[in-house]
């Protein structure tokens, strides 16, 4: 069959030649290619739901933040209790409506010629309307800021340009059951500690994106310091050495839409904290010994109100801890061992915003529960900044890796090399697993990342 012309790149390669479905390999060229990048802006970032922040960043009428959907700057603002996402481009001549990172405005006035807009993007007026400044050819309704479709989920703000496309729930599919355990588990919900960290990495967004779809293996090598001198350094009775493998068993959730969750077994931690076999403890006992990040034992009651018994069972056994949401979100809701034997959680979400084929913006939000007691909150924020994001001792190693992959993808030979996803599960769900979706038990494998690429492929080759 001849490839459809919309899938042909200028050198005659078809997008379908970049992925070998049988072999589970992806051509390295995908990590640095201007043409693919341009197509992704339409076919991925123009089509899927994108995470832009959290409503706690803009609590009051008129509050706004500036964010990015692909390379497009957007204004995320609150107006009469609703959240609006407007393209940050003046319909008059294309100036940015706001150049501020955040603020409060009842009216957004373009500083170039003065056209004014409400926080919901509606065109309000031009300064000399009586002299026909905005003309009569277009109606006023037609001169507003372009609106994205918006949804809130656990207070997280998602938007898409795909106005008639799938709903957010359809987009999440079975994975929603697991994300609910993270984002919708408390009575009052989460809030951001503050605005996100932002920094530039000279790498293709997919180098980070495919890793966020739950690359478990890299933890062993790239983050080996965690076992050598970091939080996962083992005590003498457990045998010395930097091997992190015992910490990495659990189950992994894949999704046909490229979402991924690594549900990591808490058994070892619970055993360490209680000296007891976790199987002999009830779900509630386990949750009280080791409450999820952001919660203390008293807050465990809230879990029972907001989650089903099946979700509670998974929460106390193998809760989702790291993973991603297609195309460019990473979450880390992790249980970090402390020097004194206790555990402090971290709750963090990143987006990897594309800034050209060889550049991404790493945006990092840190969360707490609104009900997290102040002392725990402070510990969480400090720990999370120390381990993740700009100066995070874990993630600084990631940010040094992706640029090299982006460079190797440019070589005349290197571009034909492949990314391989051949570690395949043959296990299925753990016994008694009550959750939906594609779930496999055991040590981490490549299935989740492979599903990420399959969805990338589906979107990139879809009928336009």
């Amino acid at each position, binding site marked *: 069959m001849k490839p459809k012309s919309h899938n042909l790149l200028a050198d005659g390669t078809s997008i379908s030649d970049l992925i070998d479905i049988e072999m589970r390999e992806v051509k390295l060229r995908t990590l640095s290619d201007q043409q693919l990048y341009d197509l992704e802006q339409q076919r991925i970032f123009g089509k899927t739901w994108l995470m832009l922040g959290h409503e706690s960043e803009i609590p009051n009428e008129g509050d706004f933040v500036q964010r990015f959907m692909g390379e497009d700057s957007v204004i995320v603002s609150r107006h009469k209790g609703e959240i609006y996402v407007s393209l940050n481009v003046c319909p008059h001549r294309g100036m940015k409506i706001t150049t501020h990172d955040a603020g409060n405005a009842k009216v957004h006035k373009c500083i170039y010629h003065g056209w004014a807009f409400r926080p919901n993007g509606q065109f309000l007026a031009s300064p000399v309307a009586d002299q026909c400044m905005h003309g009569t050819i277009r109606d006023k309704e037609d001169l507003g800021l372009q609106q994205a479709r918006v949804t809130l989920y656990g207070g997280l703000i998602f938007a898409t340009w795909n106005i008639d496309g799938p709903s957010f729930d359809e987009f999440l599919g079975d994975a929603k059951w697991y994300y609910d355990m993270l984002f919708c588990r408390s009575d009052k919900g989460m809030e951001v500690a503050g*605005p996100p960290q932002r920094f530039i*990495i000279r790498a293709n967004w997919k180098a980070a994106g495919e890793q966020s779809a739950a690359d478990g293996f890299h933890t062993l090598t790239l983050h080996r310091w965690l076992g050598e001198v970091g939080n996962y350094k083992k005590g003498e009775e457990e045998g010395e050495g930097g091997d992190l493998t015992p910490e990495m068993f659990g189950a992994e959730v894949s999704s046909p839409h490229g979402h991924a969750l690594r549900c990591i077994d808490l058994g070892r931690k619970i055993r360490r904290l209680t000296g007891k076999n976790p199987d002999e403890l009830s779900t509630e006992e386990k949750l009280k010994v080791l409450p999820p990040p952001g919660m203390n034992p008293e807050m465990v009651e809230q879990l029972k109100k907001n989650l089903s018994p099946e979700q509670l069972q998974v929460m106390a056994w193998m809760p989702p801890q790291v993973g991603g949401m297609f195309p460019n979100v990473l979450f880390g809701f992790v249980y970090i061992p402390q020097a004194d034997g206790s555990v402090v959680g971290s709750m963090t979400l990143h987006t990897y915003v594309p800034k050209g084929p060889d550049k991404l913006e790493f945006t990092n939000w840190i969360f707490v529960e609104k009900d997290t007691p102040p002392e725990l909150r402070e510990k969480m924020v400090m720990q999370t900044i*120390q381990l993740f*994001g700009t*100066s995070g001792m874990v993630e600084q*190693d990631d940010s040094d890796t992706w640029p090299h992959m982006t460079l190797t993808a440019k070589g005349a030979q290197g571009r034909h090399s492949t990314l391989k996803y051949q570690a395949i599960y043959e296990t299925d769900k753990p016994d008694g697993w009550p959750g939906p979706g594609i779930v496999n038990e055991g040590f981490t494998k490549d299935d989740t990342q492979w599903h990420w690429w399959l969805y990338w492929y589906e979107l990139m080759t879809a009928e336009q």
Partner: protein
Amino acid sequence: MTSSENVNFFDQCSSPVGIGSELYNLVLGFYYSEAQLLDNLRFKEWGDTLAEDLKYSVPLRQTRLVKEQESSVIHSMRHMYDDYRSIMGRVMRLSGESAWAEDPASRVRRFVSNVQVYATTKPDELCVVSYLLITRNRFDDDHFDLIPCERRDLLRVSGDSFKLANREVILDQVLLGTPNLAIFL
């Protein structure tokens, strides 16, 4: 939502210490040797210059209107938020086997200037403002990452030198142009 420690830094500064005075030169010497230790990866020796009640933080910056200038420095979230224990943890990591973000190490130069020293109400403590320009180069990059910033420090007299007791680093970039802060500022 904000914790705003150290925003009153300039309130703590009382009389300026004269440029070129003996005390001023001692402080300047402290900064020159600090830069030399860090540029030459002598992290453990640098660790010896830190007070055990150290607070070390790098707030975020935001682009805001002039009338909202105070909001351009964000304390609720930071790029770094450390104390003595965690800084020594970073030193230990860098001295270990697998700190890939800085192994191979960046070639870094710390240019310290515009040093202004102030007495405080405590006889053994000084407030110091300094400008720092960091040039950072990795692998065979043909560009330098530049990290210009202002440091607001509290130094405590210790023997014939000082210990760093508080440092807040005010960066000039909102969107940092370097891929991580695996180096000390």
